[in-house]
Structures are given as structure tokens and as C-alpha cells.
């Protein structure tokens, strides 16, 4: 390791912990078979890469014309400093090390996060002030051949109301391991859309950990149209009463695409609500998995937790694995999950065709209907883009 390139390279305690993780990985001292972070990825996929990183802050920017809509470009994990009465944006600095220490204490059994901890080379900190109502567009950009190991903190203060959009403009042959920590303070209301569309040579491991305080609401939608490998692991903890978390996503795979998905909501307090739903369409030789988990802790009475997993397989060679878990430790709950995997419905296809619609178009209609409800609440400009991606995907179908 060229220690200078890593953040907190002078931090003795952190380095000690990093070394421990490192030796665990070197010795392969972990349960390979049951490790969910290794589903559809081999350990060598994770561990064999050419480490290359150079900070760059030339192109990064924060733009806001109206003090309401912010556009932030992050280049190679680096952001330009910015501050006004609603928002503060900066890179992480040495004094943030305590935040990391906390993370290092948790043994998540997640090898991707282990690598993030070891090779950490960038991170940003965004603080949204109390009562701010803004929309925030984060655009991740990187130079080719880069390996980004990034740890971000997004802090949403009391009663802030934010539309957060994350996009990825990746150049070629990059690895992006981004771990994002989101705090939703009391009364915060966050709508989080993630749009993933990048070429085959890129890999994105995106992890979010959200903590929701009292009366806060976090609603995430992930749209994965990427050709490269994507891992979407998104977790939420409901730590305050009457908080809500919604983790939804859809993915559209073709060719040799692989994507690995996991969501988990832990209900730690009473009267909270959660929703986890992923839908995927798989074609050609693509592969996907979706783990979902609702955990209801002992004192989280009056919990409502719902899960849904739907896979549509368009080809004989694709593979979908789903594991929707419920772990419930108290009684006053309403929890459920539903999971279906199947082909495009033959009866619907017949019906549409019998009305004169040709097979190809009928298939598109059915596939579109499969994700229709996920698209209807989108802002117009995002909806338009997603529609373009979707028609591209459907165009290649037959």
C-alpha cells in the first residue's frame, strides 16, 4: 500500500483496524459460501484490480442559480467546497475520523465494505440545514482507469425537505465503491432517486446506510439501466417513532449483465413503516439476485413492513435469485412479503395480440406495465430520461 494515497493514513487506530481486515481478506478467513456480498461475484472479481487513483478538483463544481436547485459535480470523489445558508459541501478531512471509527466497529460481513474501508481514498460531506427545502443533484464523474473508494456523509437536519438525485457519468474501465451514510433527522423528508446508466467496462458498488429519526421519511428509488456491473445494497434503520423508509428499485438486464441487490430495514422503534420492493427484467444471459430483509426489534410495536420482489425472465439462460426475509421479534406487527419469478405472461400477450397489436409491441406494453407504477411518481425531467433508457432497452429486446 502506498499509504499517502489513503485518507487517514496517519491515523494509528484506524490503520490498525485496516490491517486486521486486510489480513482477514488475505487469509480468506471468512465464510465464502453464505456471504451475501459474494452472490454473483467471485472473490477474485472483488480483489483483483489495478489500484489507480489521482485526486482531481479541476472539474468539480457546485452550481445553484436560485438557492433552491443545486447541482454538484463530484470528480474522482472530490468536490468543490461550498457553503450558503441552506447547504454546506466539503471533502472529508482528518477531523472526520471519528465517524469512520464508528463504521469500523460494525462487522457487517460485507466484503465490499471491507475493501472500501481498506482503500478509502475519497469522500464528501454534505450538510443540509434545518428547514431547508431544496433539490440536490449529485453527479459522479471519474477519469478512466480510476479506482474510487469513497465514503460519503449526507446529513439532513431537522425538517429539511430534499429531492436528492444521484447520477453516474463514468468514463471507461473504472471501479466505484461508494458507501453513503445518510442521516435523516427529526421531520426530515427525503426523496432519493438514483439513476444508473453506464458502459460495460465500469463497476459500481453502491451502498447506502440511512438512519431515520422521529417523523422523518426516506424514500429511495433506484433505476438501473447500466451495462456494467452494479451492486445496489441499501439499508435503513428506523430509530425514531413514526419514521418511514421506502427502498425501491428496478433493473433491466441484458447480454451478460449481472446485478446484485439487497435491501434491509431495521425497525427499532414503534409506529414505523417500511416498504422494500425491487423489480427486475432479465434477458439473454443476465443474472441477478435480490436479498431483502425486514427486521422488527423487540420494542418496535405497531410496525408495518412490506416487501415485494418480482422478476421477469425473458430468456432461458438468465437466472434470478431472491431471498425475502422477515425477522420479527415482537407481536403487534403487520408484515408481509411477496415474491414472484416468471416469464412474460402468455395470456396477456395473447390478449393484446388478439386485438391486433404485434408481438413485439405487445411484449413492450407488458414489460412497461411491469414497472409502470414505479415510474408514475417521477419528476418530469427524470421520467423523460428513464423513458428513453427504457425504450432503448425494449428496442434491443427482440
Amino acid at each position, binding site marked *: 500500500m502506498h499509504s499517502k494515497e489513503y485518507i487517514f493514513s496517519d491515523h494509528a487506530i484506524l490503520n490498525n483496524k485496516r490491517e486486521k481486515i486486510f489480513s482477514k481478506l488475505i487469509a480468506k478467513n471468512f465464510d465464502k459460501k453464505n456471504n451475501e456480498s459474494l452472490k454473483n461475484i467471485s472473490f477474485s472479481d472483488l480483489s483483483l484490480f489495478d489500484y489507480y487513483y489521482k485526486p482531481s478538483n479541476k472539474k468539480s463544481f457546485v452550481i445553484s442559480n436560485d438557492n433552491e436547485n443545486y447541482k454538484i459535480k463530484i470528480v474522482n470523489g472530490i468536490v468543490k467546497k461550498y457553503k450558503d445558508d441552506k447547504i454546506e459541501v466539503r471533502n472529508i478531512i482528518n477531523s472526520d475520523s471519528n465517524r469512520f471509527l464508528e463504521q469500523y466497529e460494525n462487522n457487517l460481513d460485507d466484503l465490499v465494505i471491507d475493501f472500501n474501508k481498506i482503500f478509502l481514498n475519497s469522500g464528501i460531506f454534505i450538510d443540509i440545514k434545518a428547514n431547508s427545502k431544496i433539490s440536490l443533484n449529485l453527479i459522479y464523474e471519474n477519469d478512466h482507469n480510476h479506482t474510487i473508494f469513497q465514503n460519503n456523509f449526507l446529513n439532513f437536519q431537522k425538517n429539511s425537505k430534499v429531492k436528492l438525485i444521484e447520477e453516474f457519468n463514468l468514463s471507461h474501465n473504472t471501479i466505484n465503491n461508494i458507501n453513503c451514510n445518510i442521516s435523516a433527522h427529526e421531520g426530515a423528508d427525503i426523496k432519493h432517486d438514483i439513476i444508473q446508466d453506464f458502459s460495460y467496462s465500469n463497476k459500481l458498488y453502491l451502498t447506502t446506510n440511512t438512519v431515520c429519526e422521529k417523523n422523518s421519511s426516506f424514500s429511495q428509488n433506484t433505476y438501473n439501466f447500466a451495462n456494467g456491473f452494479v451492486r445496489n445494497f441499501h439499508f435503513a434503520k428506523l430509530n425514531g417513532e413514526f419514521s418511514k423508509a421506502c427502498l425501491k428499485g428496478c433493473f433491466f438486464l441484458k447480454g451478460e449483465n449481472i446485478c446484485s441487490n439487497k435491501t434491509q430495514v431495521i425497525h427499532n422503534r414503534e409506529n414505523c413503516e417500511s416498504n422494500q420492493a425491487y423489480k427486475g427484467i432479465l434477458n439473454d444471459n443476465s443474472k441477478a439476485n435480490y436479498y431483502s430483509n425486514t427486521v422488527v426489534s423487540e420494542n418496535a410495536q405497531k410496525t408495518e413492513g412490506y416487501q415485494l420482489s418480482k422478476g421477469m425472465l425473458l430468456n432461458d439462460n438468465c437466472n434470478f435469485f431472491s*431471498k425475502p426475509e422477515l425477522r420479527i421479534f415482537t*407481536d403487534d406487527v403487520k408484515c408481509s412479503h411477496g415474491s414472484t419469478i416468471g416469464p412474460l405472461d402468455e395470456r396477456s400477450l395473447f390478449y393484446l395480440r388478439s386485438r391486433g397489436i404485434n408481438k413485439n409491441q405487445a411484449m413492450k406494453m407488458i414489460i412497461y406495465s411491469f414497472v409502470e407504477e414505479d415510474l408514475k411518481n417521477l419528476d418530469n425531467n427524470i421520467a423523460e430520461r428513464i423513458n428513453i433508457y427504457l425504450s432503448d432497452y425494449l428496442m434491443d429486446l427482440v
Partner: protein
Amino acid sequence: MNTETSKTLEKYAQEKYKYGFVTDIDSDRPQKGLNEDTIKFISKKKNEPEWMLSWRLNCYKKWLKMPNPNWANLNFPEIDYQDIYYYSAPKGFEKKPKDLSEVDPKLIETYNKLGIPLEEQKVLAGVAVDAVFDSVSVATTYKEELEKLGIVFCSISEAVQIHPELVKKYLGSVIPPGDHSFSALNSAVFTDGSFVYIPENVKCPIELSTYFRINAEETGQFERTLIIADKGSYVSYLEGCTAPQRDTNQLHAANVELIALEDAEIKYATIQNWYPGDENGKGGIYNFVTKRGLCNGKNSKISWTQVETGSAITWKYPSCILKGDNSIGEFYSVAITNNFQQADTGTKMTHIGKKTRSKIISKGISLGNSQNTYRGKVSILRKANKARNYTQCDSLLVGNKCGAHTIPYIDSKNNSAVVEHEASTSKINEEQLYYCRQRGLSHEEAVSLIVNGFCKQVLQELPMEFAVEAQKLVSISLEGSVG
């Protein structure tokens, strides 16, 4: 939860296990612990041929190298395999008694107390029973009537002697001894159990049933059951079990293998009521059971039904390998846990053949401080065109100290297959309770009624003779006696 519900629950928790008595009988046991000599001792007691002994020893060697499986959501101290007796038989059982006059009356009395009369004039109508006491089969009823139809129903020890060709061919063919450590252990030390062979095109006219009783202290029970349904045949089989109330934990590690050939159907039902331990979690049976059925032929069908109310720990996944085209696998389960019981149970449906179908209905009820987990796997392999699975798992929580967990694994590799899974978890509905009580039912009756309703889909799959029995057991389980 309202106070009335809590009171009812408390009352339930105070009731006791009804089958907890001990039969005072001398038994014949080897030294404690497991080594090659133990296995030789068992094999010699059973007067087994050489091939059987070497098969056992081979499995023992496999077992030595295998760690216990660790996927289950269970918490228990490590089992000390050297602190267990591996064989126990009432004295004088070197040879199976020819008829009941040779059987110790205490044994017959034991089965009477359990509600399983063995004497000819009292036998249960329509049910043939093989009674297994610790490590040996005591008696088998209706044997001759079945022989007339060519049906073989005997203990596995007898089958080794009389039908070695069938045993050799099928034993370990569905559950390879090296599958996991409990299957290897059972293969090495299995003592007794049932053997069934139904010849081609014979529909077995009565229920076949085995009743397992663990009596001796610190004794493991390792039964082995093998059921073969030849082409076009049908059999319905039921297994029941109880054990005395003891402070120490006892190990039960059974293997059950089912083979259904073309157009054959096997229905296998279990009413498991092992001693669950007391209200503080002391004692009880550790129940590690491997049950697997192979639908080997076209249009064959295997259906598992289980009512699990007993045991301190239940680890059990009756499974179906759907190899024949158009074959059907079914799993119906009620698992009730109370006090400090832990259950991790479910099924595995492996779709290999075309148009194979499977259905899973699981109902879990958790009370007290118990933890109840459904764990199931549905795999659709590449060539299983138009395979279909439907799974429904419902959990009911009664009280806020228990846990209910649903952990399904769903894997589809075929795009013409349809896999559907639904699950729900909720607490007992106070509105329903209120409604029932407004109609004059006591709180207890109301809980029992609602839980029975919750389980109905599964209970109705049981053979008629036992459905009523099972319903009662569910109510009793709620009364805290077992579970």
C-alpha cells in the same frame, strides 16, 4: 396485548406435558459414547450382515470429518457426542418377540397410556402401527393382512434380513450419507425405524404408522425410515412421537427416505410431540431430522404434512426432488413453539423435470419466549420447463417476547417456470377474539379456535383418522403443555 389475552397465555404456560411419564424397565445398553466399537455393538445386536456393518463404518468415517451444519437460526450448546448412549433396548429384545405374549406387559401398558393399543382386539381401526421403543421395534400390527397384498411393512432391522436387495438398492440413495453431519451420523448408528415397500399398482388400503417413543435417559434415538412406492402404487404413512419429561436434553437424529416411482404417490404425515422442555427451557429433545423424497418417475407425487409442536429444538426440512416429468411435491406444515422452544423448519423443492409442480403451505405460531423460523428453498433448474411453485408462509405471534422469522430462498434458472411466494406475519387478531367472545366463547376457546382456523389449510391434509387428533394437539400446544 390486552390483559385477558395475557392471562390466557399464562394459564396455557402452566399446563404440563401429558406424555412425560417414564416406563420403569430394564434396558440393555452399550458404553456411552461413539466409536467403531459402538457401531459394531449395534450391528451385532441386530445380527446384521457384513455389508451393513461396513456401510455403517464407512458413514462413521465420513461423519468424523464433517462439522455440524450451521445455517439454522438456532441457539444451543454444542452437542457432546461422547456423552450419549447410542443404543437402548428393553431387556430380552435380542430377537423381536413373535407376538405380544412375549412382550413385557409394561411396554404394552406404555403404549396404551399413549393411546396406541397394540393388542389385537384393541388395535386402531384402519391403521397399521409399528411401535418403536428407544432403539427397537416392539410390535407391528396388521402385518399379515398387508402381506397378502404383497406390501412389506416391518422394522428396518427386519428388512435388512428379509429384503437385503431393496435395502441395498435404496438406503442412502435419496439422502447420501455424506450430505451433512446429521445424515452421516444417522447412517452410522441408526437403530430402528420402519421399512415400507408397496408393489406395483397396489393402493395400500390402510394408513401405515410408526410410533416412536424415547424412554431411556441420556439416549439418542437414530431412527431410519425407508419407503418405496413402486409404479402406480399409493401409500399414506403417519409418524408420531413422544418422550418422557427429563431435565437433560436428548438427541434425536432421524433420516427418512421416500422413493416414488412412475405414477406412484406417497403421503407422509408427522405429528411430532417430543418433550419440549419445561417453561424455563430446561430439558427437551433436540430434534435434527433429515427427510427427503425423490419423485423419480413421471407423474409421481410426494406430499409431506407435519404438525410440529414438541422438541426443545427442531431442525427439519422435509424436501422433494422432483426428477420425473410432471411430478408433484407438496409440503404442509404447522409449527407451534412456546416457552423457550426453537424451531427452524421448512422445506426444499428442487425442480428438475419438466412441468413439475410444488406447493408449500407453512403456518408458524410463536408463543412465550420461543423463536420460530421458516426456512425454505425453491430451485428451478435449467431444464424444468413450465415448472410451477406456489409458496405461502404465514406466521402468527402471540405475545411480545417471541420471534417469527421467514427465510425463503428462491432460485429460478428457467424462463418458462413460474414461482410465487407470499408471506405474512401478524399478531393474533383482537377483533376476531372479541367477535368470538361476543358470541359466547371463552377467551381460551376463542384463541384455540382462531389458531385452529389459521392452521386449517394444513390440518385438512392429514389422514382423517389423525386430523381430529392433530386439532386437539394444536389446542393442547396452546395450553402450554407441549409447546
